[in-house]
């Protein structure tokens, strides 16, 4: 299959007092259309850096990103971003938060149609009764639901999620994983998601990309996850491939991630 989104030789270097700090070096990854890819790696290796470069929120030092045939420059609503903290604007209701983006992207549509879009996505994520509440009145999980609705409502070409469930308790996390998977399946949007959670990666994605430790982090290993879709958590966990895959990911994180490239010069 041809690449829908391609990250080629993506490199991030921060200037620092001790000379340039190479955080990510020559990161290469291709996503096909509608593919769900998760990125795992140790804390601080540069996962968020990669994701925010794709989002256009962080400058690219070298290399580039091509999405749907065009090289990306800067941020834009063609990529729906779900941040780790829901980052809703606290003075707007859930509905208004979603509308902010919709008004921006679908400005040609009549008002009632735009409102219908917001209502639809908020209902799909389970907030039909709470859509006119302010973020302060919503639980953390509900806020993240708004964040998901906001991202999907813009019909983006690609979805970028940076540990979207990292701040949630495990029960809420399970619920939201199912919500996300459901929406993703219905909309077939390519997704790149950062996570710490190996089980989450296996449940959600088609491929898991393991990053080596920084500095000069790059793609270490790519694991194909071929559980049938639509997925059911229980069926996935009982699948005979589940534990071998899980072991492989954990082994990577425990052993191989630390192997630096020779030129990094570390012992």
């Amino acid at each position, binding site marked *: 299959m041809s690449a829908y989104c391609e990250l080629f030789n993506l490199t991030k270097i921060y200037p620092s007092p001790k000379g340039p700090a190479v955080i990510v070096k020559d990161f290469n990854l291709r996503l096909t259309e509608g593919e769900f890819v998760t990125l795992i790696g140790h804390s601080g290796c540069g996962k968020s850096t990669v994701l925010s470069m794709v*989002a*256009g*929120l962080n400058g690219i030092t070298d290399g580039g990103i091509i999405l749907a045939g065009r090289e990306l420059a800067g*941020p*834009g*609503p063609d*990529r729906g*971003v779900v*941040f780790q*903290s829901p*980052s809703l*604007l*606290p*003075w707007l209701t859930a509905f208004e938060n979603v509308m*902010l*983006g919709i008004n*921006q*992207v679908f400005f040609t549509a009549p008002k009632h149609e735009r409102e219908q879009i917001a209502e639809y996505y908020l209902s799909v994520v389970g907030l039909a009764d709470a859509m006119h509440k*302010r973020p*302060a009145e919503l639980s953390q999980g509900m806020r993240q639901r708004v964040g998901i609705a906001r991202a999907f409502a*813009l019909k983006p070409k690609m979805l970028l999620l940076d540990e979207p469930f990292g701040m949630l308790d495990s029960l809420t996390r399970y619920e939201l994983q199912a919500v996300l998977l459901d929406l993703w399946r219905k909309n077939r949007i390519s997704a790149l998601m950062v996570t710490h959670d190996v089980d989450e990666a296996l449940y959600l994605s088609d491929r898991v990309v393991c990053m080596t430790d920084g500095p000069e982090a790059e793609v270490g290993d790519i694991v194909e996850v071929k559980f049938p879709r639509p997925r059911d958590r229980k069926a996935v966990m009982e699948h005979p491939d589940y534990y071998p895959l899980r072991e492989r990911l954990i082994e990577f994180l425990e052993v191989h991630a630390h192997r630096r490239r020779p030129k990094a010069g570390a012992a």
Partner: protein
Amino acid sequence: MSNPIVPSSLTASAAESGTKAALNLNSAGQKPYGGPDWSRFAKVDWLLLPLLGVVVVIVLWFALSATLSKDLPNPTRTWEASKSYVLEPFAYRGELDQGILRFTWLSLVLVAKGYVIALLVGTPLGFVLGLSKTMTKALDPIIQVLRPVSPLAWLPLGMVLFLGAGKQASELAALFTIAVCAMWPTVLNTAVGVRAIPTDYLNVAKVLKLSRWKTLTKVMIPATLPYMFAGFRLSLGIAWLVIVAAEMLTGRPGVGGFLWQQYNALVYEQIILCILTIGVVGFILDRLMSVVERRFKTA
């Protein structure tokens, strides 16, 4: 959003201590649902103690005017002489002989004008400082130098600036002084608020590719409002402080002008009346602003 710049209000803590006292009484043996008596004690607490404070001050005042400072009119003489101003608050007997509320109104109108100018200049300036490091570097030293300058020093400058304005000069000079003195808290708080806008909010604006104008109106201004209003409140306090000085020096009718005129005419009885009026009005303004401010705190 919590705001570190705003001091917690005195009345709130007073009310709190009242409740605490009530709870103590309760635990000291009263039946929890026994009757209405302990709640009445709580009321007495916040009614009686302040009254006691007032009585003590009045007694000290009597003592002072009878002993150390024989020229200070004692409370009864003050009241006798001030009665007509208080009981006929809207009387007009002459330019500098009006009821106290009439004077207050004149002062308030002037303050309002100067305050509005301070906000109109201070808020955008604060935004510019908050947004641009270069502007901060360029202007911060000037601000730090101008900020501590007393209104008494600004007023003559204002007079000189508006010398050409003829009859209007004193009003313009007073407005200039109020605006220049009162705008700094607004400038500085707005700048702090702009710098404190969470990157997350700005990222939302970036991802949605909001135009500069929309980013400003839909994200930056709402995010800064709590800080702005904290600044507005402090600015109003200063504007009211300045009015007295401005009226004294320009001889304009108003609470401050009246105070100064009576002093110069060697009539000392109304000085305390004016001080009290200034204090009460300042207190009420501050309360009103804090109500407005609280409305924007959660926003």
